[in-house]
């Protein structure tokens, strides 16, 4: 299996990552026995191995449909009845055939959002990550600039990425872990995640 290309990683960053939270919370309100992380990981796997992603007109919708088909498969294997109906696509604006709204963030918004999100990390870790992510310095250059080892920079990158995955995942993971017997509680959880948005 080939590694995801740099271009594909960029495409995912631009077209999928911004919608991940919405897709997660939407999934969480509709599935009760499935691990949303499982679905999202597989969704990324499929999107990363597509032959041609650039020609997808509405990546948000495409990603959500991919997630749904994965959820249906998982549900079939786990012999649970998923609570998914295709009509639900309306809710997320997923039924539309319009191109998904581009991430209209200018670099200023993105910078602010990233900085705010990363506030919980130690400052050196955060600085190292921003130098790499925002300024495009290589890990070696970041190490030289901050006077720390390349290994430490690598560790900071891993930690920051892990942190971001967790942050983007906070949308609706809670609802996903409710067992079948607690379907009612699951609904409450789902509602709560709706209220939170």
């Amino acid at each position, binding site marked *: 299996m080939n590694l*995801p290309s740099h271009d594909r990683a960029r495409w995912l960053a631009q077209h999928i990552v911004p919608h991940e939270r919405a897709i997660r919370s939407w999934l969480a309100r509709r599935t009760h026995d499935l691990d949303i992380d499982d679905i999202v990981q597989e969704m*990324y*796997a499929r999107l990363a191995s597509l032959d041609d992603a650039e020609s997808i007109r509405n990546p948000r919708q495409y990603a959500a449909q991919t997630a749904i088909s994965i959820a249906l498969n998982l549900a079939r294997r786990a012999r649970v009845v998923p609570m998914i109906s295709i009509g639900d696509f309306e809710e997320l604006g997923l039924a539309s055939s319009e191109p998904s709204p581009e991430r209209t963030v200018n670099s*200023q918004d993105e910078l602010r959002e990233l900085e705010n999100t990363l506030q919980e990390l*130690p400052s050196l870790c955060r600085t190292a990550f921003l*130098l790499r992510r925002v*300024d495009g310095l290589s890990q070696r250059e970041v190490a030289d600039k901050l006077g720390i080892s390349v290994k430490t920079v690598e560790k900071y*990158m891993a930690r920051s990425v892990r942190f971001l995955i*967790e942050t983007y995942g906070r949308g609706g993971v809670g609802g996903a872990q409710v067992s079948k017997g607690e379907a009612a509680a699951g609904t409450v959880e789902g509602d709560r995640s709706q209220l939170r948005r």
Partner: protein
Amino acid sequence: MTARISSKEVYDQAASWAARLDAGPLPSGEQANLEAWLDADIRHYGALAQAQALLVPTHEPVSTQMAEPIQSGRRAFVLGGSIAAGLAIAAGVATYVSRAWNEGRYRTQIGEMRVIPLDDGSVVSLNTNSEIVVRYSQSRRDIELIRGEALFDVAKNKRRPFIVKAGTTQVRAVGTSFSVKALADRPVQVLVREGVVEVKREDVPVAPAVLVASNNRAVAPLDSPIVANPVATAEVGRALAWRVGRIAFHGEPLGQAAAEFARYSPLHIQIDDPEVANKKVIGLFVSTDPVGFANAVAVSLDLHADIHGEQIRLSRK
């Protein structure tokens, strides 16, 4: 479910692999490990793609930007507007002074930005044309801002206060994030991004210290009391855009914007017409690229930009 690992662990491993791949090519042994890991579960591949998407730089690295044909000699002079290039060069020139005692003097040239990690885990980001002196002892962490602007991300340590002095203004923090700006002929400004700091004037011992909370800016004029005012989060972000080589404007007059650019470059923007100088500017610009700024402004405000040697003149068409 079988004994497969949890999705949390998958993410842990994926983050490590993404960071590892981002560092450079893998030795063959590790390559084999990675392939075995990827083959074990489709989720691994997806989590890795996800992690890589979060790590991909927003801007292309310097090397690819440099590879593009340079459009004009003048743009080449301002480094094609890439902050990364500026940082890389700064890193090459910079020398850290006596880090062993963590005492030293750090300065930046015009247009340079530097990040200085200190041994206690605090990080100082030094903006253009700035200078600080660091003096650490067992009981306190003293920094003097000789001139310019710096952002301090302070590592928490209750027993060792972090004190920044700028002229006669003193800012005291325990663990927080704040910037201090000391420009010639202007009152010292303290902007708090996180936590609380205490600002006081050394030369007026009777005046009480002012507590300044996050999202507040304190101004310390020489002849009147310190005043703190709330600042919107967005404004804090704009005020600190210099950390990544940007200047942000949100309706400031063009004249003020030109003065701001003069802090970052020997190229100066000249505006003779007061009406032009009063036009409002909005946007985010590369701080070391006044030419790019002038051209962008000329287009959006329908002005004429005339570039001559070290001077850029903006006038009505």
